[in-house]
């Protein structure tokens, strides 16, 4: 049994324009100690999928169906009070914005001890000692001094490490990292990614990494799921995905990487993302796809095994070296 099993998850948001279909039936599983990348462009539903695990979507406007199971326990129907005990303990989140994700009124040490005292019931003193250890774990020099500092005294990379320290303080089973490196500059990015890898190796934490940076995916993830318009279009072990991408959208993303630029010009995927308000029975990508055939407009392709069983793609006319 997988650690985390998401089955047929759909998430709609009630808005003034109608029901926005953010996630349209996605199934995922995450193994112990696995680093899974969720990638795709803005609005493809990757964050919404991940945030529905700890139920961090606005409760008033979110309509969710499907199942999310952690260790076999259904999370979608759990009462809010039980869910609070899981957040930060079994499932933690590292957000994108390190500059604004820490409480400016308290020292970073206090903010780490807060979680420890809440979930682990540690005494103030024990939690304080653990906070120093955690800062050391995430690679902050002089941790004993840093715990007494306020967020504004730390740089962005430091703050992101503090965020990670808070997230892993209670040794979570699943760590959700929502574009954890986007706001950081490149040299610091690598350091933060190392921290994730290190935590996985040491604590066995499974990581869901939300990113649109394929470089990050290649660097750290074991497996990747490419999402488009609220659905998974391709899913494969990372080495396989980069060696033999099958879905035309994945191919397009890879061609759009700066390293793949021809004559200094970046390739782009033409066209626009389809409307999140309607969901016609066709391949969502066909309007932008160079390989589209008439049948792409007649029904929607489902995820099918490709050359490897672990490699799934939802395309009638997959590309790549087959």
């Amino acid at each position, binding site marked *: 049994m997988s650690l985390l099993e998401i089955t047929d998850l759909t998430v709609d948001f009630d808005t003034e324009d109608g029901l926005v279909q953010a996630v349209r039936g996605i199934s995922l599983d995450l193994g112990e100690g696995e680093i899974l990348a969720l990638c795709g462009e803005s609005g493809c539903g990757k964050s919404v999928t991940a945030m529905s695990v700890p139920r961090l979507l606005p409760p008033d406007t979110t309509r969710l169906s499907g199942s999310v199971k952690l260790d076999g326990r259904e999370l979608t129907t759990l009462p809010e009070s039980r869910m609070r005990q899981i957040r930060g303990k079994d499932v933690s989140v590292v957000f994108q914005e390190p500059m604004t994700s820490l*409480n400016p*009124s308290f020292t970073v040490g206090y903010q780490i001890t*807060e979680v420890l005292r809440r979930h682990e019931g540690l005494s103030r003193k024990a939690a304080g000692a653990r906070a120093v250890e955690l800062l050391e774990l995430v690679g902050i020099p002089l941790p004993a001094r840093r715990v007494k500092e306020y967020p504004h005294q730390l740089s962005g990379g430091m703050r992101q490490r503090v965020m990670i320290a808070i997230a892993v303080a209670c040794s979570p089973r699943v760590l959700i990292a929502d574009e954890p490196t986007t706001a950081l500059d490149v040299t610091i990015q690598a350091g933060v990614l190392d921290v994730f890898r290190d935590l996985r190796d040491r604590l066995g934490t499974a990581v869901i990494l939300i990113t649109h940076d394929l470089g990050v995916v290649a660097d750290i993830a074991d497996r990747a799921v490419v999402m488009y318009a609220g659905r998974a279009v391709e899913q494969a072990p990372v080495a396989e995905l980069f060696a033999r991408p099958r879905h035309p959208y994945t191919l397009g993303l890879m061609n759009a990487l700066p390293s793949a630029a021809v004559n200094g010009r970046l390739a782009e995927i033409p066209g626009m993302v389809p409307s999140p308000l309607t969901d016609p029975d066709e391949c969502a990508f066909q309007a932008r796809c160079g390989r589209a055939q008439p049948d792409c407009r007649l029904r929607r392709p489902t995820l099918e095994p490709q050359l490897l069983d672990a490699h799934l793609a939802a395309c009638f006319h997959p590309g790549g070296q087959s």
Partner: protein
Amino acid sequence: MPMAGLVLVAGFLLLALLGPVLTGDPSAQDYNATLAPPSGTHPLGTDDLGRDALARIAHGAQVSLQAGVLSTLLAMVVGIPIGLVAGFYRRWLDPVVMRLVDVTLAFPFLVFAVGLAAIIGPSLKGVVLALGFSQLPAVVRITRGEVLAIREMDYVAAAIADGASDRHILLRYVLPNCSSPLIVQATVAIPAAIIGESTLSFLGLGVQPPTPSWGVMLTTAQQYLDVAPWLAIWPGLMIALATLGFNLLGDGLRDVLDPRSGR
């Protein structure tokens, strides 16, 4: 200028806390010197009953301080929780609270103070209640406005993701981060309440003679303006200086506490 404010406020506090001890009984009468001008024995002169103006100014400072601080404290203690809850939970509570605030704001302060004086009798308690109530809408509004902004902050989202309870988020994340505008509000509210106390006491709705209050002293002084003008000058000057001091200090605090105002 903020330093000048700090000096004035410190002077006012010293006068209110130490003055009464040093100057003695404000009701002691010197029958040989009624309406006497400033002199060696009575540095600020005496009033119509021969009472020392300096002693009465010092004791009056205490009354002003009490009225200013207690009414502001009352408004904060009642208003902040209302603003926190209304701003954080929204739903039906927020519009209800805000309309009530509008109603409170539309109610004339003096009419309310007269009504209150009629019910519980004119006293310092009545003054504090009336002033506290009149400050309430501003406190609720400021708190709510800040909460609306802070509840959308990333660190609140992060706290929810860490499993924090609503209570914890309100007390540890929202309240501390909306404190600066409230501190500034207090420095504006205290001088306003000092003037309010003087106004109410001047009109006979507040502190009652013989208790010395700057407002009460002004009431007496206006009858003797042509023979003993100093009786009006001292309390008037004190009200002006205390108010000015708090306002200058508030300006300074706002510059320090509000990152948007720049430095």
